[in-house]
């Protein structure tokens, strides 16, 4: 076990780049901000932020899989590298969306906090120790609370932030309690060592309690039913780029963190869901969460008229599939799950990007506000179609292969012979239901005639490039999944 600062410094180069970028954004705005228009301030912040993110991406790839770093506090394995890179790409997409969104009152702070949040995410992605994990999670969460409430002049934003904060704070408390129980039971903070210790002990009541605590926090982070209640309000009220970040990068990082926590860390007490019967462990809990999320997300989404709430419920439904991916990770490894999570992130961030642009051009709350998008802006309509169809799981888009891979992995556990198989069938059938609400969105965007007073939509160049890149990513990754699949 080595505690080399040199290696640590190399390992956290991306984090450093982000923090430096955030500080630069703030400093630049402090120095030059007074003389510039708010628009110029935003674009300067975005440029700096983007460069910081790009630098972080380059660093992250260049650093590569170092293995355990600094006495196992961080781990840079394949999953961590891919996950960090993915989160950073999603952050970049968020900035692109922010370029086309309504301008926040303090643009530099906004961008800086996005960068801080992203820093938290990539730390989460690499954390291998309970304390690091918790700190990273808190860094990310606190940033997100601020981002959700950033539009201070809007009640909805404040409401979103408050709800998000209350639920998030509670979840953090549970998680901390759970962590402390685990530490108390095993005397270890390092996930690998925890796994080693647990392998020799069965489930004790205290451990079960710890598992429940961890699961609650996980459910919150993943927006899985029944811990999803914050999601629709947060998605609806938060400024659009914030919502995009919450829906995509935050989820990605959260799944990485919890995947690492559950599979290597708590694998010994996983239990079994491939066969009927109660086996104990956390897998049945995850299965329950997955089933509830699938049902609630898909069915509630049918009734939505607000596009953001619809995306929120669809996110809950997708969380169900992701949890299924966690279950399937037992044999299939992280590949299918993270292929799913990352492409879902791109699609949903892209969708929020489109909504962000529309908000600046006459508002976009109801699904019907999308009416006639294909006339108002063929570019946005085309990109939205790609994102939504990917969310719906239509080939050859990435969302399809994600589902395909997760389902295939889940069925490999034991065919239809147990809860995992039944959940898979449920998920497959509900994906046909999901098509209905996704098509409702596309019907407005591509089929319906534009409203009387609607004007053509102006798309800022940066956002246009971002959205096209995201759509291109969805198509390319969908057609060639093997580009992404082996990275995790």
């Amino acid at each position, binding site marked *: 076990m080595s505690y080399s600062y040199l290696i640590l410094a190399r390992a956290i180069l991306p984090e450093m780049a982000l923090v430096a970028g955030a500080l630069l954004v703030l400093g630049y705005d402090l120095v030059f901000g007074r003389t510039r228009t708010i628009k110029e301030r935003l674009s300067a912040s975005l440029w700096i932020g983007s460069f910081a993110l790009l630098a972080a991406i380059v660093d992250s790839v260049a650093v590569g899989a170092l293995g355990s770093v600094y006495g196992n506090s961080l781990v840079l394995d394949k999953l961590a590298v891919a996950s960090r890179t993915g989160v950073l790409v999603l952050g970049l997409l968020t900035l692109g969306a922010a370029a086309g969104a309504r301008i926040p009152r303090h643009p530099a702070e906004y961008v800086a906090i996005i960068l801080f949040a992203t820093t938290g995410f990539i730390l989460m992605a690499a954390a291998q120790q309970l304390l690091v994990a918790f700190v990273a999670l808190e860094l990310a969460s606190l940033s997100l609370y601020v981002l959700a409430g950033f539009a201070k002049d809007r009640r909805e934003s404040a409401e979103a932030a408050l709800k998000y904060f209350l639920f998030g704070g509670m979840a953090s408390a549970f998680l901390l309690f759970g962590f402390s129980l685990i530490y108390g039971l095993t005397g270890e903070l390092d996930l690998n060592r925890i796994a080693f210790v647990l392998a020799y002990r069965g489930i004790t009541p205290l451990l079960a309690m710890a598992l429940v605590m961890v699961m609650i926090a996980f459910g919150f982070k993943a927006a899985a039913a029944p811990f999803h209640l914050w999601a629709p309000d947060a998605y609806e009220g938060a400024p659009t780029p914030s919502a995009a970040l919450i829906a995509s990068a935050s989820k990605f990082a959260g799944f990485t963190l919890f995947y690492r926590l559950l599979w290597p860390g708590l694998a010994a007490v996983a239990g079994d869901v491939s066969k009927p019967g109660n086996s104990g462990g956390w897998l049945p809990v995850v299965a329950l969460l997955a089933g509830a999320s699938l049902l609630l997300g898909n069915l509630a989404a049918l009734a939505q008229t607000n596009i953001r709430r619809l995306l929120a419920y669809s996110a809950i439904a997708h969380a169900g599939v992701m949890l299924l991916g966690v279950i399937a990770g037992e044999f299939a490894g992280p*590949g299918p799950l993270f292929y799913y999570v990352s492409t879902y992130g791109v699609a949903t961030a892209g969708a929020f990007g489109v909504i962000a642009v529309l908000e600046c051009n006459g508002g976009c709350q109801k699904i019907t506000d999308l009416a006639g998008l*294909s006339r108002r802006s063929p570019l946005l309509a085309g990109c939205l179609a790609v994102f939504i*169809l990917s969310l719906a799981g*239509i*080939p*050859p888009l990435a969302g*399809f*292969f994600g589902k*395909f*891979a997760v*389902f*295939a992995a889940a*069925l*490999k*556990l034991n*065919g*239809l012979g147990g809860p995992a*198989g039944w959940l*898979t*069938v449920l998920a*497959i*059938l509900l*994906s*046909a239901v999901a*098509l*209905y609400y996704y*098509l409702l969105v*596309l*019907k407005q965007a*591509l*089929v319906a005639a534009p409203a009387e007073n609607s004007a053509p939509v102006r798309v800022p160049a940066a956002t246009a490039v971002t959205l096209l890149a995201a759509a291109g990513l969805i198509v390319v990754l969908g057609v*060639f*999944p*093997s580009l992404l*699949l*082996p990275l995790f």
Partner: protein
Amino acid sequence: MSLLPYTIYLSFAGALLSLAAGTRSATAARGVALVTAAGCWGLTLFAASGFVPSSGMQTLVNVPWIPQLGINYHLAADGISLTLVVLTGLAATAGVLFSWNIADRTGEFFAFYLALIGGVYGVFLSADVFAFFVFYEIAIVPKYFLIAKWGSTNREYGAMKLALYSFAGSALVLAGILWAFAATGGHSFGVTDLARAATGLTHGEQVGMFALVFLGFGVLAGMFPFHTWAPTGHVAAPTGASMLLAGVVMKLGAYGCLRVAMGIFPEGLGFWQPYIAWLAIAGIIYAGLVALVQDDFKFVIGYSSVSHMGFVLLGLAAANPQAVAGAVLQMFSHGVIAGLLFAVVGRMVYERTHTRQLDDLRKLPLHRLLPFAAVVFVLAGLASMGMPGFSGFPAELTILIGAWQTSKIWALAAAIGVLIAAAFTLRVIQVSFFGRTDGAATATDHHPLPPITGPEKAGAFLLLAATLLIGLKPDLLLNWIVPSLQSPLMQSVWHGGVP
């Protein structure tokens, strides 16, 4: 043969090109669509001319696609696929001709249209279940937009219903093939690999997987009682789309039933065979009877499609080379004939008279106002009712022979279906075009309708020529189809799962 995959790529490229051309001018988009569709058709014919019938699938492309899941991009063709690919080319070309008058966002229309075609080609050429499924779903999505955007009566309802049924069906298929993949150890999605591996499955697994996959594909093939999307969808669709829908998209379902469900799970077929056959027969008879009492011209044709697809399913269910050869022939035949019928109803009549109510049409001396349409419809109707000399006859005859070999009572029920088809077709011919034949009603009493245009005539001639050619010389297709039925994969179908 090696050129066949280009039909897929060309169609998708044509879709993009048409989208681009549409921003300049509608004519350019039409031109692109026609050139693409006809070009692909030409490719299929060229490939067919060099086709040497053999018992197995002839591989066209086989490269690793997603090695982690044992997925290959494996395209292959045998006589059955070749038949359907040629049909696709023909129907697509004719469909473009009958969509010539689309003026609203022409570029987008043909983009969706060609994307659909590309997917259809892909399905017919896939020899890997994953690729098959991918192309299958690609073909479904454009249908929704074609109908919802350019359709007529109740279009959004029709489009949504169709899309949801299709996706519910494909969800079942997905569940079935993933289950099979997982249960066979998860090594490969190749059709032949899966079929070989499936021999190791338990009887229960085969039965379950077959049920999922066959039912899923059966929905799209219009299997009773899951056929209800078909009439509403067909009615709502614009002419070109309903031609494709009835002409080739329903064939996707039937082809999936044959290639995937039957080919991979022959034991499952053995179990479900009687149920499928009776559902098929119920479809033939029920849809026929419903068609007999419809008031809407297009609904009659819509239900007739369901009835005719019942013959295809019956042929498949009979599961002997005779019946399956007939089923494939019927797929081709129905593709051509349904296209023709929808073209007359949707394009030639509805867009001129603006009504499809038989009660309104009855009052017009339509055979004088639109003599060309009348002749085409009569010929298409005759073909549809299985009149000898047209392609429907050898197909239905072959199916009857095959069905008889499996179960005499099925064949008897199907024969009643033939009779019902004749009754409703005659009725609709009589009421629609020849509602007023008294001498007093001459063309001059009515406002003249716009004359039939050149593209319409060209399209009608193409399809008529095809149905007559195959009617008189069915062995043009049977020569391709029959050897394919001798492949090892099919052998196990005939023997109910015993390889």
